[in-house]
């Protein structure tokens, strides 16, 4: 009798790795089991079980069997629900979706269920599929994931003196302490980045807004640039390195200018 337990869940493909002659090791983010890694036997040759199902950001109902979490799961099959074809046929959207996957992969441990993380990734992929690409979508995903992962940046007042936001003061973002700091307080981060009050308020608004209204929130060029700088700096500080997908995204943006 097999000691493997059969499981079925909704899953989004984060990444794949070629293994042996024809197998793939696939990392999924699932609704029921969090991040899992499994082997899809013969997936690179199979014309039936896995065709088009194991591409990054494909969303499927997957069947897998598990011996225990220390072993690779065994992927039995996938029923694709969404391919996100609009994302795949647009370079900017593909790059942003890849960044979403990279962030989820970096901020989530294996085998820890987080329905909020799954829903966030799913909702933002759907938004990206339907809406025009914008800086706001990218930065609001970063902000919301930081909150779920326990790194919610303090934006509603100075992280040091606790005074609420005040138009008469200047602000910087202190990545070491994880929030904005006013001009009257000394930051712990030597590289604290100046940020305007308008940008902070835009991010605050976007953090709380209902997902279906996010498309209406427009960032000014200044807010987009400041958000890019403070959030990428903060994420790099938390992870200790720059994300590969962000480096490629910036490289391609430079090339097209």
């Amino acid at each position, binding site marked *: 009798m097999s000691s493997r337990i059969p499981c079925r869940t909704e899953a989004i493909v*984060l*990444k794949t790795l*070629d293994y*042996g*002659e024809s197998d793939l090791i696939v990392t999924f983010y699932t609704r029921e089991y969090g991040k899992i890694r499994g082997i899809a036997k013969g997936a690179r040759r199979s014309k*039936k079980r896995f*065709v*088009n199902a194991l*591409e*990054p*950001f494909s969303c499927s109902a997957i069947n897998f069997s598990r011996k225990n979490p220390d072993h690779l799961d065994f992927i039995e099959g996938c029923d*694709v629900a969404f*391919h996100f*074809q609009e994302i*795949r*046929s*647009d*370079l900017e959207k*593909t*790059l942003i979706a*890849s*960044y979403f*996957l*990279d962030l989820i*992969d970096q901020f989530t441990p294996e085998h820890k269920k987080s329905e909020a993380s799954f829903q966030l990734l799913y909702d933002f992929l759907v938004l990206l599929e339907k809406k025009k690409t914008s800086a706001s979508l990218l930065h609001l995903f970063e902000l919301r994931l930081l909150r779920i992962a326990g790194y919610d940046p303090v934006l509603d007042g100075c992280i040091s003196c606790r005074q609420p936001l005040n138009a008469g003061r200047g602000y910087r973002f202190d990545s070491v302490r994880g929030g904005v700091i006013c001009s009257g307080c000394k930051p712990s981060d030597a590289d604290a980045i100046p940020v305007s009050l308008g940008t902070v308020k835009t991010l605050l608004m976007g953090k709380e807004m209902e997902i279906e209204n996010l498309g209406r929130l427009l960032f000014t060029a200044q807010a987009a640039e400041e958000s890019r700088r403070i959030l990428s700096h903060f994420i790099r500080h938390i992870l200790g390195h720059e994300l*590969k*997908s962000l*480096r*490629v*995204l910036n*490289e*391609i943006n430079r*090339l*097209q200018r």
Partner: protein
Amino acid sequence: MSGYAIPIKNLIAEFSKFPGIGEKTAARLANHVLRSSGEEVRVFTESLLDVKRKIRFCSVCFNLAEGERCDVCADSRRDQSTICVVEDPDSLIAIEASGEYRGVYHVLHGVISPLDGIGPDRLKIAELLERVARQPVQEVILATNPDTSGESTALLISRLLRERNVKVSRIAFGVPMGGDLRYTDKMTLARSLEFRRTA
């Protein structure tokens, strides 16, 4: 691997570095070498060294070549004004095997893969743009694989060539010859309708 003499262990360890080769297969290959004649092993090692000594990138298309230019670029009967862009030399071999294509190639040596940190700087994209600017090219055919990375690479190249006076085309996607619509996945079917042509 315990029980093997050190030279055999070393050989198994070297074979294990090959892609797709596990320790058991490596041990089988090492045993095959042991059973081979001295002459067979000499020919094998010579061919390994030959590959490293003689093979380099074609100066025009970056295909693997024995000399300055690969066989395709050196063939005066090939249409030099049509360039087919492929991911790697294996894709070039596959298209050549079809016997249908009479133009030349450009080998990118990879595709854009953001999650692996592979961007355009790691590919031969700048060299393609330079080639299109330098020689009279009428058409560039983008023949990267129809997966996420291949599509992204094709989209980027197509955008970078937009300003140039050159036709840019993408290979068609759809139902394979001998295929059955009932068993074709919905994404392939959708693409086959999108890329349909006048009958």
